[in-house]
């Protein structure tokens, strides 16, 4: 069985080696204003996306601001 990770609550195969690679696969470049990432419950600053490897069982939250009250 292949390694799995959770991205925004959804399980998927671990395909990208780093956080930056995973985001880039989804069209989000490092340093995109308004996007932030938490890895396993802690904020991962965008300057560290490149150097941060992903491993089986990791949980990522990728957020952005939306309309709100």
């Amino acid at each position, binding site marked *: 069985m292949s390694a799995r990770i959770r*991205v*925004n*609550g*959804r399980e998927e195969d671990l395909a990208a080696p780093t956080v930056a690679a995973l985001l880039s696969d*989804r*069209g*989000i470049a490092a340093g995109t*204003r*308004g*996007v*932030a*990432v*938490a890895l396993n*419950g*802690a*904020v991962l*600053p*965008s300057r560290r996306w490149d150097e941060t490897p992903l491993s089986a069982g990791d949980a990522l*939250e*990728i*957020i*952005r*601001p*939306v*309309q*709100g*009250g």
Partner: protein
Amino acid sequence: MNDTLTIAGREFRSRLFLGTAGYPNQQVMLDALEASGSELVTLAIRRISLDGYSESLVDVIGDRAGLLPNTAGCLTAKEAVLTAQLAREALGVDWIKLEVIGDRELLYPDVEELLRATEELVADGFTVLPYCNDDPVTCRKLADLGAAAVMPLGAFIGSGLGIRNPHAIETICARSPVPVVLDAGIGTASDAALAMELGCAAVLLNTAVSKARDPVRMATAMRDAVAAGRAARLAGRMPKRAFAEASSPQLGLIGT
């Protein structure tokens, strides 16, 4: 007359804070924002859609107003703290409208979790503006923990029921060591004016404008109502009387 509002050392000319949700479209939202004169708008933080990256709300708002991200929908201090930290990372803004709710239908604050989250976020360097109950004791505790303002509700979020307990709001305003921002419940202009007359430093509203038949016109009405209520508060209202007192002279009446 110089009557700026200061929260955590930041000055505002407008005492109206506006939400960005629920407008018929983005242009109406921007037009309403301009009409309101507001210098601070609220945003929510949500998981990004991984199917496609749409235009960023931040870019749409640009430099039209300052940004106040919220933690809407969070049920625990832990969720709210992480949401606030993500908001800071995403926006470079360390102000947070702290919402920790205890009931998904009523959207009523969970005071225990709210106090805990306030303490943690203040310690982490945030300027915390908590949405809270119209309860003077809770408001005092939040201020003691370092909240930069307190934001008691006038009525349930999105209800438009106005200020259900004006005496509580007035009491909170009279006793609070930090600015009081009436948040939630405003339905129309007179509600916003009343909040200011009761002593609130500012009003935060969203649905009253976004769901008005003409949001831009209502935004103008809210701007004027907040200004009028503030001016009335500063002017000092006349004392209330139980009986009539003629304003015209009693002497020189014809036929006496």
